[in-house]
């Protein structure tokens, strides 16, 4: 997991992770908020089902894909966290309609 340095004084934000209420901070990307919660893995791959988490944090590796507010395959490292956001981890192949 990743830990915030003590000098970080940004405001907390509440969001849902797989239906559970959790907190991040203003200025987090969704991927950063998950790492701070100890969620190093955020999906399972479509090919083998192996667990994955973000590797590059700059939008190139596509390993941090999550479902955000009902839309699947969003790059968590590029999406700023917002209050009340609904984030879901992804399991295997993309589900139809998402």
């Amino acid at each position, binding site marked *: *997991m990743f830990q*915030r340095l003590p000098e970080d004084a940004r405001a907390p934000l509440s969001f849902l992770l797989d239906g559970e209420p959790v907190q991040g901070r203003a200025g987090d990307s969704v991927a950063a908020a998950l790492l701070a919660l100890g969620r190093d893995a955020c999906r399972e791959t479509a090919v083998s089902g192996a667990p994955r988490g973000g590797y590059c*944090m700059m939008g190139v590796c596509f390993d941090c894909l999550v479902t955000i507010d009902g839309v699947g395959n969003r790059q968590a490292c590029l999406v700023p966290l917002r209050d009340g956001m609904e984030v879901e981890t992804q399991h295997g192949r993309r589900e139809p309609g998402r």
Partner: protein
Amino acid sequence: MNLPELRDTYDVVVVGAGPAGMSAATAAAAQGASVLLVDEGVGPGGQIYRAVTTTPLTDRAVLGVDYWKGEEVAQAFAASGAAYLSGATVWHLDGERHLGFSVGGEARLVQAGQVVLATGALERPFPIAGWTLPGVLSVGAAQTLLKAQGMTATGRVVIAGCGPLLWLLASQYVAAGKPPALILDTTPAANWRRALSHLPSFLLTPYARKGMKLMARVRRAVRIVSGVTELAIEGETHAERITYRRGNAAPMTVPVDHVLLHQGVTPNLNLPAAAGCELEWNEPQACFQPRTDAWGQTTQPGIWLAGDGAGIAGAEAAASRGTLAGLAAACALGRIDAAARDRLATPVQAQLALQSRGRAFLDRLYRPADAFRRAADTALACRCEEVTGRQLREVADSLKVPGPNQMKTFLRCGMGPCQGRLCGLTVTETIAAARGVGPEEVGYYRLRTPVKPLTVAELATLHSTEDERRAVERG
């Protein structure tokens, strides 16, 4: 700015808000050009100056003085009058200089008189066994989390690989009071021999003194194992152990919570290559780069490339290269004549010459070992489609596959969402080794629009004319 304020045409469209992009936009706007800068990030800075206007880190010593130089570049850009669209993902550029991009699920096309691509660099793939396990991140990723969110990896943190960025992150972790447990240095000992003749010119640069100070600070605080020739990360659902080997010595295994990998950066090729810019192989840097002249002109008229995307030279050189490309674009538009362009460029070119000194030494010293540039047998070369190094070699040998585009059809490597960004160089170099030829002969993936995934719903938000709608309507 927001999407509704966007115009259909601009004199210059710049892609990327790192030092090169911001400087190009500033220079072109100063000559009266209408400039739009589009960038995927939340704020200006690119990767090197990531979050320079918003970082929660107030202690400037943690990120260091070089990081804070980005403030000046960002301030000049903010005052330039150039329009700035953040959170915009560019998925299309063609030879007629139409740019397609999306913001928050809405797509737009704009027409540019001139285009400056400042799309920067990516970290070179590091295809060792276990590099896809949760808990393993790139050094650049850890640095992004430090700059933008003030976060550090916890537990037993092992940093492995080579290159200046590895030492910079280690020193930033030390300055933040979070030194890593271990550094596994993979710099090949033989590199020193090739680098030595470039050492005198490197020693004349400010980088030499800064680099030695930085490495000394890390050495005082962190255990370092050098000469590492083999690496593998193991674990069930998370990185649990790393096994390393130095030459013929017995392998050693240590427990880990996080592994941070890095072996240099290489130009981000997808957008210029999809726009039809020719690529060339850079042997000292072991990577492809778009072919450019001293102004950044690519082989596509009106498309310029500035910064590390045109060959790795670092942040300060990137800002100078951005200014030169911005002046050249303004000249191509007729905003200034060639004499004015040259006069304005002269001091920048002199500065760039100084900033470029020492690069030959760094390129040669930190060139990653062959074994780490080609995928290990059990390592995933292609993370998206989960293709191993062994599969690549077997297909290359048995089917005599000439290059990466044929390899795709057999193994699907490079066909996942990252579009080859994390496997392109690995696949090229693995095939080249199997064939016994150079990477330039094997070539790179053929890259096409859209260079990032684009949904049909996004595409459908593009404005269409009455004629266009009528042309596809039934009845």
